């Protein structure tokens, strides 16, 4: 998937991959992160 110039919403998880890590990856791929948040499902 080409993320360049795409708007991205990042939902991270405490016990999985946290939002800041996902954000860095998405931005490195050229995406614009418009919202990044962590969720806890327990």
């Amino acid at each position: 998937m080409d993320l360049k110039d795409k708007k991205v919403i990042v939902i991270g998880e405490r016990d999985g991959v946290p939002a800041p890590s996902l954000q860095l990856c998405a931005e490195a791929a050229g995406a614009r992160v418009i919202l990044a948040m962590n969720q806890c499902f327990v």
Partner: protein
Amino acid sequence: MSRFPAVEAVSYGLAHAPDLVRYGSKPAREIGRDPGRQREIDDHLRSFEEASRYLPNRVFLGAAHPSALNRVSRPWWDATPDSEPDGTPLGRMLSQNGLYGLLRCCDQFGLIQLEKETAQQAHECLAREKLLPEARLSPLEASGVQLPDTHVGGFARLPLYREGTRVGTFKGDHESDETLQPSVLLENLATKATALQATMELLRLNPEVEPGSIDYVINTGEEAVGDRYQRGGGNLAKAVAEMAGLERATGSDLKAFCCGPMHGFLMAAALVKSGVFGRVLVVGGGSLAKLGMKSSAHLKADMPILEDVLAGFAFLVGTGDGSQPVIRLDAVGKHDVRCKSSAQGIAEALTSEPLGRLGLRLQDIDKYAVELHNPEVTVPAGSGDVPATIYRVIGSLAVMRGEISRDQLTDFTQAKGMLGFSPTQGHVASAIPFLGHAWRGIRKGELKNTLLIGKGSLFLGRMTQMSDGVSLLIEQP
């Protein structure tokens, strides 16, 4: 005292609360939107017998070892009971009537009223279980008056049910204070009652522990006890100490979301190690708000609502008798502010970094106790298998560090981890459910050590985007 403080005793408690599921946060919101949801919930509640024989609950109470979960195929809720007889438990499950009675006995403000038959049955249950001294049961003798309407004197009252019939009421204590509304006070009193339940079990199972020898109590539950001027003002710990007859104790509440118990564990050990106190009790009561948290998914899957119990724990930290597991205060793992937020960064801060200080590798740990949420509750809701995910991260770290090969990852996670079995009761599930098993295993020589890892989702409170974590190593003395 040895170089390090010891875990002197551990106990647990469960309280069956099917008719309180409606007051869990998620069910209450859904019933508010669609009153018909109540009927669906009622049709999927378990009996006391079903909840009692549910293998994850027996493992939580210490009657069965976590390894028993590997021998029984899922769904566990529909499984034939394991043929292996239960061992000596570290706690018991209280019936809902018993829970109502315990709530009444813990209530010093006339918040709860029970109808006569329920009060009598609750009295019989608590007397039979010898959970509280007879003198503490007197509030139940005074119960049994005509139940008031749901609104009296301007205070809203929550009805309390048994199989759909109203058997009690629970009132608020201020007409406009949001923190003293009945739903909040019931949540707080439920936490107090179940933390007390686990504390009384600890004293019952360890008669050598004199109540007067406990100096301090740390409550690690997440509920906010307070009023309109100080939400979360706290000190449920002292309320529990009072009810448990810990005459020489005071205490305080420690808040860190689900990581609270591990912070409490650390503080207790530090207080004992420093010589400030000889014995510190750490407690955590159940979370009423989390009853039925994943019930929507359970209803969709036409399976029982498994989040129908309140859970509690209590453990005692002291100088030890030389046979009890010690807490390695020279290897505390903590998720610093500066810590990387990646799964790898968090895992390193809580495992390889503190172990490295002792010259230990990840492989040198017999068992890792992590967030032990029961996957049978979470997976149908799409929330994943929490412990399996964390074990995979720890195993992956072992691969990255060259301790094991990639092919050995599954073997590593199976040997060092376990299936989740804890009720999804927030802080309760955070590593502490295995503490009793580790305490026993280390004393018997079956385990040499266990690394307990707690995590907290601080971002839920909207004050920081960070999460949190603390780990402690316990080992043979």
